[in-house]
């Protein structure tokens, strides 16, 4: 039976791990290599690593870091940040990364999705959608460049296009719920789930294992991604890498008794 995936999501800034709240106030969390090594030893389902300033600074991905991180992973790794062309897709995949994520680039040059899929295969092309609710109209809005730039696309419609173009997965990231640890934006997840049949991973807001359980109970086979939850501990948000054991995960899936094979 295909299991739901529980996915730690790490943000890299200036070569170091950070954690944000609403995509702002980055707090230093430490060395990425050691963090990834610990997650590997915890046998996590898979890992997402996003370089949050590569695109903004218009620079190349940090290939040395990517190679070192990939070397520590005995589970699939998804890397995103600063990816603008097919050559970069190829190069990153050849470093031992299973999936490459694009965000702003997918909006600006959506044809990159199909071209990359032709080379590395659609299953390795991930589109990350950063979404927030417009404070005025209350409608969901797609944003670019760490949520700072407005974009005229409607999230659901963009999700459908991304599927048509041949992507393999959508990561829907809620800016409003990021770092707040009060639960996922389930309504946003539903919106995207209705719009596309691609595998979906939801990111932003998980504060406890129960939030992940709620997501899985509703969506069955889904990716439950989290940053703060797996990196912080306690009310003082002390940095301590944690992740449910295999026994805890199996128990959680049993309990949700998900809608199997959906």
């Amino acid at each position, binding site marked *: 039976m295909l299991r739901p995936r529980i996915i730690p999501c790490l943000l890299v800034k200036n070569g170091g791990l950070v954690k944000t709240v609403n995509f702002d106030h980055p707090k230093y969390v430490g060395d990425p290599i050691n963090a990834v090594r610990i997650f590997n030893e915890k046998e996590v389902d898979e890992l997402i690593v996003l370089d949050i300033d590569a695109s903004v600074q218009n620079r190349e991905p940090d290939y040395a870091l990517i190679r070192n991180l990939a070397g520590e992973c005995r589970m699939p790794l998804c890397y995103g940040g600063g990816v603008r062309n097919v050559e970069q897709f190829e190069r990153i995949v050849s470093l031992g990364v299973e999936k490459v994520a694009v965000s702003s680039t997918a909006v600006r040059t959506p044809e990159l999705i199909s071209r990359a899929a032709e080379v590395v295969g659609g299953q390795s092309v991930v589109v990350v959608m950063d979404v927030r609710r417009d404070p005025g109209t209350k409608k969901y809005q797609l944003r670019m460049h760490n949520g700072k730039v407005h974009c005229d696309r409607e999230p659901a419609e963009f999700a459908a296009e991304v599927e048509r173009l041949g992507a393999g997965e959508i990561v829907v990231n809620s800016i409003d719920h990021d770092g707040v640890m009060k639960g996922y934006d389930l309504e946003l997840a539903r919106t995207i789930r209705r719009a596309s049949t691609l595998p979906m991973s939801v990111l932003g807001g998980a504060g406890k294992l129960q939030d992940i359980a709620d997501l899985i109970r509703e969506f069955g086979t889904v990716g439950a991604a989290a940053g703060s939850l797996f990196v912080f501990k306690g009310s003082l948000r002390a940095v301590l*890498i944690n992740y449910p054991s295999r026994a805890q995960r199996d128990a959680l899936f049993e309990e949700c008794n998900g809608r199997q094979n959906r």
Partner: protein
Amino acid sequence: MAMTNYQICVNCVMDTSDAKIRFDARGVCDHCNTFYRDILPNWHTDERGAQELDRIVESIKAEGRGKDFDCIIGMSGGIDSSYLTYLAKERLGLRPLVFHVDAGWNSQIAVNNIEKLIDGLGLELYTEVIDWDEMRDLQLSFFKAGVPHVDTPQDHAFFATMYNFAEAHNVKYILTGANYSTECIRNPLEWMYYQSDSIQLRDIHRKFGTRPLVKFPITSILRHKVYLRFFKRIRVISPLNYLPYRKAEAMQLLEQKYGWQPYPQKHFESRFTRFYESYWLPKRFGYDTRRVQYSSLILTEQMTRKEALEKLMQPAYDAATIAQDFEYVATKLGISVAELQSYMDAPNKSYRDYKSQQSIYLIGANVMRLLGMQLGGKR
């Protein structure tokens, strides 16, 4: 070294790899004699110790009234600090803040153990994350300096951070897992020079560092042993010295109650310390810290000399995995395996090759001994 120059203590297992070791007429070393003469008579784990501990605990509680927590416990995830945390909360009724310093080398077991204890004991955790780029540069400087005490950056950061926090938050009591039971014999100075000597740290950094130390926490012996101690009244307590502390039983208790996982060897909470103590130090300098640890356990009757000698026959590191560890350390430090090897092959230096404030330590140690405030100590 000529065979005739080699000598090992008949009582413990310290030997002439400690260049300053001295033997009495019976062949017993000065580490043992210091223990029997200075430490043992003044080390009380019976009623006297319990009463002394009660007094201290009362002071801690009084001082902490009305505050969120009454003390901080330096927690590495190792057996000593783990057991201490259990003791402080469950047996002494204290309200500690568990204080962890992340220097970038935590092992998965350590992180897991800390989590289990926090959850099992219902305590709050505070983590100070050392800036990795600065830590890496400083660690690399120590490798380039060619000295044995390459783990100084981690050790120094642990203490400096705790002191800084205590001072900033007006916390009067720092609890540590330091104990005579497993550490009555200390690593010789030649092997591990004072980690708190900021003059040495800065000199090595000045000579070999490539980036300024801005965020890295620095303390100094005068600052924390004199200023913070006497002027700010921040006291460091080692509760494990006031009651019977037996490592095997402590591990069993924590395993049963909290699912705590044992480590293959002391200090394996940090991947770097493991590499350093089990491979770098013995391979490069011939200093095997297991001798020190086992000797302490022999003196406190938790290990027999025979057992210790048998264990010492095996290398301290696992030959099957050492190549991977070596590569990991090199990768983390941002250098090639060849470059790390070049530091291994370079001429050995010692703390004497760089500036230090060793004189202050000597004066201080004598003063403390005269005042009866410190037993034994490093030499």
